[in-house]
């Protein structure tokens, strides 16, 4: 017994060793695993993206790797790392072999300058003298949209871990020259103004950039640019995701993101300084497995020379805040009114510049009218690289006397810095026909502040206008009338379809049941004749069959007859169950007992040693025939109702 066990253990050990060798051989011949991935989908034209090629090999020596050429793509940066490499030996004695398991990761930062499909060549890896090739890798490059913008005046949103994610202009990296004292080798913050010299009130666009050579994972601006001495409008506040573009600064390759963009309007002449912007930048220098670190970076301050507004040709009514490029207009809402009915004079200045602070003409007195304080409204659009908008001033005027009254011409001047000159716009004189009040409203009432259409306290049209919510700028305009849904054909079809489907299912199941019933009735009707036919055949061959065969056949004829009549199986019933079932279905007690008696007689005769004489067998056959004839005329009650 012990010998036997030793034998088994030896065999198992040998199998394990052989399995190990086989497995090692299999490992030795294992093909390298090559995977190519990009860090986003879709890739936008001009946007930097990261492509990673991971190669896992097991071989005796170092693998030879041939990387693709990236035709049609610009390589901004590339790196290589080997996060895993270990060796192991297998084999016996001097024939052991060394295997090296290695993982290599090649990372490329690429930019596609052309939209469409780009196919990246296969990676070729040569291990143990054998070359393996990956499949070509396709990327789809789509055209970029616009630069993201943000609403002016919104608080700066926290910047998310940064991956270049938004479109950037196509083409080669922009070349920028930056003061060398601002430039750090790896990352720095820069403030840039679109002009170094500006007149008072002229718009200067200040952009705060982050330059980096490494991946930025988080960023927080700890000190916003100091803008004392300027009116400020925000063009681009904190963004959820930074948008990077490749640039060359002082001959070095960087990725650059805009952190802030402000429109500055200098208030006074002289030197105006924008205090430095300070940011905490979390970066991940090196490859994938390098650690993150946070560095504080501060920009250099920025000085802008602010020139005074020219005094030459300066209009008398000019207000120094009106600097930019504007259109001015004035209109009245009604030309014919009754005494006491208000009219509204609307003045608008639309254009580019410090719209929020524009000063529009003031109406002190107009002959024949009571003039109210103006209501002003500003609709500002600060985005991209400029501030545009509309400043509206509405003046409520109530005619105090009937007649032809005039709203005087209005003059408005502004300084256009691009043209370097003052411009004056003049609105025409507006005539208003004032009729006597039909409701007896008097000029005195108007002079006291009332209107014919409004309640004297706070019911003026102008006040009403202020309470009203303004128009919607967008709406889904549909053409083709406004036919209500409930009259559309598809609505009616769907509404009717559901009950129709239900009725169809109900009718179909009812028809199926009826068909089954009809089939059953036919079977029941033919049960007697079928049984008698079979008995006639048996009668002819009564001498040829053995008694067991004969009685078995007779019992079968009787069972089939009953099943046909009852439309239900009875073969599995015990004799008492059969009797009960027959009585339930309309057979008399006597008939039911007779059926049971004959069934038992058949069973007995099949297994009895003596099978009786020929005459007795003939009598048995006749009894069953007679029984079937008697049962044939009975009206069978329907089977118990099944659940639907």
């Amino acid at each position: 017994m012990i010998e036997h066990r030793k034998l088994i253990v030896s065999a198992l050990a040998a199998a394990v060793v052989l399995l190990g060798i086989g497995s090692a051989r299999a490992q030795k011949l294992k093909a390298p695993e090559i995977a190519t991935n990009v860090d986003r989908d879709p890739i936008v034209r001009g946007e930097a993206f990261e492509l990673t090629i991971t190669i896992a090999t097991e071989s005796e020596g170092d693998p030879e790797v041939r990387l693709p050429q990236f035709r049609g793509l610009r390589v901004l940066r590339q790196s290589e790392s080997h996060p895993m490499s270990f060796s192991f030996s297998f084999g016996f004695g001097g024939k052991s072999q060394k295997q090296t398991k290695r993982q290599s990761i090649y990372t490329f930062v690429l930019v596609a300058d052309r939209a469409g499909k780009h196919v990246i060549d296969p990676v070729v890896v040569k291990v143990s003298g054998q070359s393996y090739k990956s499949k070509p890798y396709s990327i789809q490059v789509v055209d970029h949209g616009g630069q993201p913008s943000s609403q002016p005046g919104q608080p700066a949103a926290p910047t998310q871990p940064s991956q270049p994610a938004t479109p950037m202009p196509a083409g080669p990296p922009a070349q920028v020259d930056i003061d060398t004292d601002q430039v750090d080798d790896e990352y720095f913050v820069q403030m840039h103004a679109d002009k170094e010299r500006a007149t008072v009130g002229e718009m200067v666009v200040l952009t705060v950039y982050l330059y980096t050579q490494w991946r930025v994972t988080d960023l927080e601006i700890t000190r916003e640019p100091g803008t004392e001495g300027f009116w400020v409008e925000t063009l681009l506040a904190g963004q959820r995701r930074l948008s990077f573009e490749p640039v060359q600064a002082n001959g070095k390759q960087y990725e650059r993101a805009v952190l802030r963009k402000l429109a500055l309007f200098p208030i006074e002449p002289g030197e105006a300084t924008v205090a430095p912007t300070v940011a905490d930048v979390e970066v991940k220098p090196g490859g994938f497995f390098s650690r993150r670190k946070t560095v504080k970076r501060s920009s250099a301050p920025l000085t802008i020379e602010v020139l005074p507004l020219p005094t030459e040709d300066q209009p008398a009514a000019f207000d120094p805040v009106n600097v930019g490029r504007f259109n001015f207009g004035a209109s009245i809402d009604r030309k014919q009114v009754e005494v006491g009915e208000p009219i509204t004079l609307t003045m608008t200045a639309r254009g580019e510049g410090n719209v929020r602070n524009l000063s529009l003409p003031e109406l002190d007195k107009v002959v024949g009218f009571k003039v109210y304080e103006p209501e002003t409204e500003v609709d500002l659009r600060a985005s991209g690289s400029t501030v545009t908008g509309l400043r509206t001033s509405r003046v409520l005027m109530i005619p105090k006397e009937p007649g032809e009254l005039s709203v005087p011409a209005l003059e408005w001047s502004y300084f256009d810095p691009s043209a370097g000159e003052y411009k004056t716009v003049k609105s025409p004189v507006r005539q208003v026909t004032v009729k006597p009040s039909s409701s007896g409203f008097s000029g005195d009432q108007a002079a006291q502040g009332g209107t014919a259409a409004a309640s004297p306290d706070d019911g003026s049209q102008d006040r009403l206008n202020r309470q009203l919510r303004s128009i919607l700028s967008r709406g889904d305009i549909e053409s083709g009338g406004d036919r209500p849904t409930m009259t559309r054909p598809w609505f009616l079809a769907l509404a009717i379809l559901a009950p129709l489907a239900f009725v169809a299912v109900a009718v179909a199941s009812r028809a199926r049941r009826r068909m089954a019933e009809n089939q059953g009735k036919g079977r029941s009707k033919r049960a007697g004749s079928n049984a008698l036919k079979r008995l006639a055949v048996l009668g002819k061959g009564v001498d040829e069959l053995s008694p067991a065969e004969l009685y078995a056949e007779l019992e079968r004829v009787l069972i089939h007859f009953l099943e046909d009549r009852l439309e239900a199986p009875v073969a599995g019933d015990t004799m008492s169950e059969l009797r009960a079932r027959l009585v339930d279905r309309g057979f008399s007690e006597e008939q039911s007992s007779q059926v049971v008696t004959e069934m038992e007689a058949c069973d007995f005769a099949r297994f009895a040693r003596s099978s009786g004489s020929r005459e007795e067998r003939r009598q048995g056959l006749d009894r069953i025939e007679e029984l079937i004839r008697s049962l044939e005329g009975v009206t069978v009650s329907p089977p118990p109702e099944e659940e639907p």
Partner: protein
Amino acid sequence: MNRLAAALVSTALGLVIPLAAIADGKSLDSMFDEANDAFWNGEYEKAAELYAELEELGARSTALSFNRGTAEARLGNLGRAVCHYERALRQDPGHADATHNLAVIREFIARRASEQGRDADLAPAVGPWRAVLDRFSPRSASIAFLIFDVALFAVLILRRFIRREIYRLTLGVLAGVLAALTIATLAVTVGKWNQISGEREGIVVVRGVVEVMEGPDSEVKRFVLDEGSRVRLLEERDAWVKLRDDQGRDGWAPGEALGEI
């Protein structure tokens, strides 16, 4: 047959008129933007005309009705403004801006009427059924009915094939709930249909008040209605419309004094 011909003609016109506008170089959206620009420029009259032009071209939207109402309100045409806000609310009963502006204008008109010694209650008395109907747009009522209708019969069909008693019982209860919801939404749908097709409603759009007379061209005044009052339109004869106010008073007013919602 006549109805079929009318339907065909109206469908053709519905297609052709907007196409003509587009062929003229303007899409409905650009016209809408143009009207909005006019509004922002303070040219409310032009804005109102452009919105009206859009509606004449068959354009329909809540924003369009709302904006037209707002332009009319800025022009002081408060009755017209009420009419267009009511239209906006017919399309979208939950439209917050239209609800707000309508309430502001009604309050304004009521206060003005009160100052002039009249009692103007422009917010018509609304019964509970009407209040329920006003919470639904025709579209939302129809879609809700369809969903419950289809779900009800799907459950009934499914129940025919289920044998287990507990499931059959659950489906039976669910069918009962769905049947109740189907009936309720059907009632609302029919109610909305009646509102649209049966009860024509109008708003007094003239400034100030309109005098309601005993008959067309009659000299006998029955009562006056304030600008912005909601009435039921009963009959039209020549340029006159028979109306009924929310107090049940009937009379005739010039058609031009009324705007249909």
